[in-house]
């Protein structure tokens, strides 16, 4: 598939081009690549938030032409509603989907408990740390139990320690209730540690450089980072990203 944006001045910007990507059900796929290579665009295309300029996006054999309810989205910033309590922010998903929030209260509380937010249900977002707010945003995305979870640098605004913690938490939640996850990150170790598959993209226009299957045992642990295999994957990804950068520099 491909996507061309038209800027305000009328110029055409090819954001992604010739992307072919197959993702199996319940797979954890991470997406890395230089800034501006179209990772966010790709997620928006999959979510049906922006139309493709060519090709098709299919989710479970249905062609995606508009947003569909079976998807959860997490952004780099939590974007919670500041006037709603933590619990009501999670229930926001049900309300907007036109479901009865009362039917989802139990699940919302379970999700909050699972993310270590028990006891914070009645707090306002501003009383929470950045990491806790992002946990709430993840609970909100998980509330309708979507089969597809799209995450755009969800831990990008957090410090390294919180980031690692949340990564493992996400793996735990995913383990308990499998779903397909498409996860954009700028951190190569994070991409490898979480994923079944790492998709490396190159920029302008964004293309898929390589899809690397990560053959590391699950459950993943911090120790894996010292594994020789981990290092090899890490070098491979880094090599691909640098190669694309060098190619661009040469082209100038």
């Amino acid at each position, binding site marked *: 598939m491909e996507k061309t944006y038209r800027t305000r001045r009328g110029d055409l910007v090819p954001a992604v081009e010739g992307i072919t990507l197959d993702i199996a059900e319940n797979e954890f796929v991470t997406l890395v690549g230089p800034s501006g290579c179209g990772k966010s665009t790709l997620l*928006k295309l999959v*979510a*049906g*938030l922006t139309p493709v300029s060519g090709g098709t996006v299919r989710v479970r054999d249905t062609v995606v032409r*508009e*947003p*569909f*309810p079976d*998807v959860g*989205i997490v*952004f780099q*910033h939590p*974007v919670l*509603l*500041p*006037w709603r309590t933590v619990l009501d922010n999670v229930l*926001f*998903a049900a*309300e*907007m*989907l*036109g479901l009865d929030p009362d039917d989802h209260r139990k699940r919302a509380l379970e999700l909050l408990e699972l993310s270590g937010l028990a006891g914070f249900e009645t707090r*306002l977002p*501003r*009383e929470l740390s950045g990491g806790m707010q992002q946990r709430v945003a993840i609970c909100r995305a998980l509330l309708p139990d979507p089969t597809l979870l799209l995450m755009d640098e969800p831990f990008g605004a957090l410090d390294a320690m919180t980031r690692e913690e949340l990564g493992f938490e996400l793996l735990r939640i995913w383990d308990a209730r499998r779903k397909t996850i498409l996860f954009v990150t700028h951190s190569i170790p994070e991409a490898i540690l979480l994923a079944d598959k790492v998709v490396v993209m190159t920029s302008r226009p964004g293309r898929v450089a390589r899809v690397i299957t990560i053959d590391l045992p699950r459950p993943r642990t911090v120790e894996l980072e010292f594994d020789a295999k981990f290092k090899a994957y890490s070098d491979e990804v880094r090599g691909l990203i640098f190669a694309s950068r060098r190619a661009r520099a040469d082209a100038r």
Partner: protein
Amino acid sequence: MRASVRSLSRSAVPAATLAGAIVVWELASRGLRIPKFIMPAPSEIAAEAWEWRYRFLGHTWVTLYETLGGFALSIVVAVPLATLIVYSPWMRRAIYPLIVLLQAVPKIAVAPVLLLVIGYGEFSKVIVAFLVAFFPIVVDTATGLAATPPELLELSRSYRASALKTFVKVRFPMALPFFFSGLKVAITLAVIGAVVGEFIGSDKGLGYVILSATSYWKTGLAFASMILLSVIAIVLFGAVCLVERLVCPWLAPAAEE
């Protein structure tokens, strides 16, 4: 405890300064024998105001409801306008320049014509107050509605929520802080608008009292009206702040323990 002492001393200092200024004014106007019609002493202003207290009540009421009428009308008109501006690019192009143009016309210059057309009753003052008050509400509300984080709008779209639902549950509440800062400017402008309307032509209201008192050299009454007008403006401003705090409690600074 310590905080309350600090806030007390914070309001005590300006209060003492004000009291000092009044005392100096009183002593100066007695000592220098300034004629009463040029610069009455505070005690003389107070005495005249007290004599007029029942009549003042009526005039204050008139100015107050002209102000509030104009203010209410400006909210009723401004919010839908702001919504149209934000939601429809076509409306933005059609309406926005007109609003700016209207704002650029000096209201004081328009008021005489307006009174000529609508008449000299209280309604014309409501309209003048409305004309000066509605601009900041339109601009601020439109800015607030346009400032919704794009992620929240994408999220709403991905839930396939209707535009109305997104407006009610996300966009408008998100814009409330902007809306209220527009209201705060608008309420003080509405007081000015009502008084300007009364200046042009009326037989009621504090603006009318100021005009007729000065033409009879009753400067004390004019001063008393000015003070009453300031009190009205301050009280109304405070009321808007209070409503804001009640409607948006999440904006209050976090309590520290």
